[in-house]
């Protein structure tokens, strides 16, 4: 494999119709890369959560706004960018779903799952407005020592 990433990019309107497609795509990419079935499942779920957030919280289901998903496939890792056209947000202000007062809330676990299952999760403001969520999953990360 070359050092340049192989890239799979998806740009879709803000509708749940595409969530299954994107997750299947994620599963295919991660299995092709050699991630085991469980890891593929959790990566796919993290991507699903991020796309759902981009649709609902970012673009507020406005169908004229788009969600962009970019898979960068490297030999040793997968990097996924999920872009929305929303108003951005402060990831530091998000309540901790494990705190006693939040434990029985019906929502608020999406970002927590992404952080649990991916090696790195960053929220970057996009110059044009909106949020870029950038997630990285390394291969064989267990062998390389402590997970960050």
């Amino acid at each position, binding site marked *: 494999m070359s050092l340049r990433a192989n890239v799979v990019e998806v740009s879709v309107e803000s509708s749940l119709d595409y969530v299954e497609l994107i997750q299947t795509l994620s599963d295919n990419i991660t299995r092709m890369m050699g991630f085991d079935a469980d890891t593929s499942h959790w990566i796919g779920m993290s991507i699903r959560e991020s796309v*759902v957030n981009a649709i609902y919280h970012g673009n507020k289901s406005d169908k004229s706004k788009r969600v962009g998903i970019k898979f960068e496939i490297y030999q040793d890792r997968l990097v996924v960018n999920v872009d929305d056209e929303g108003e951005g947000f402060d990831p530091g202000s998000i309540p901790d779903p494990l705190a006693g007062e939040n*434990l*029985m809330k*019906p929502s608020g*676990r999406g970002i927590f799952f992404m952080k649990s299952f991916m090696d790195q999760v960053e929220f970057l403001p996009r110059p044009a407005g909106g949020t870029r969520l950038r997630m990285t999953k390394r291969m064989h990360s267990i062998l390389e020592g402590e997970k960050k």
Partner: protein
Amino acid sequence: MNIGTRTVDTVTILDISGKITIGESSVELRNKIRDLVKSGQKNILLNMGDVSYMDSSGIGELVSAYTNVTNSGGKLKLLHLTKKLHELLAITKLLTVFESYENEQQALQSFRK
């Protein structure tokens, strides 16, 4: 998602199969639980053995269902957690909230106490 309904003694068992994810399937489960609570059902056992996929909305629905049933004086328990659901409940610290069983007979007995 598909929900089969069985009644054994005083317990309503919901055999759920397929995905519990954001959208239709979450709403369907929510409505089912609401109807059972409305009709006075107190003992509800969710058989999760054939649930193939859950996301954070699905977990949220389980939490809502638990709250809903408990607030009306009933009990909601889980049967046959899959390995993945077990992991999701563990990391969200919900494993201690939900009573869960690997064996249907034991689950049914637990409602008799």
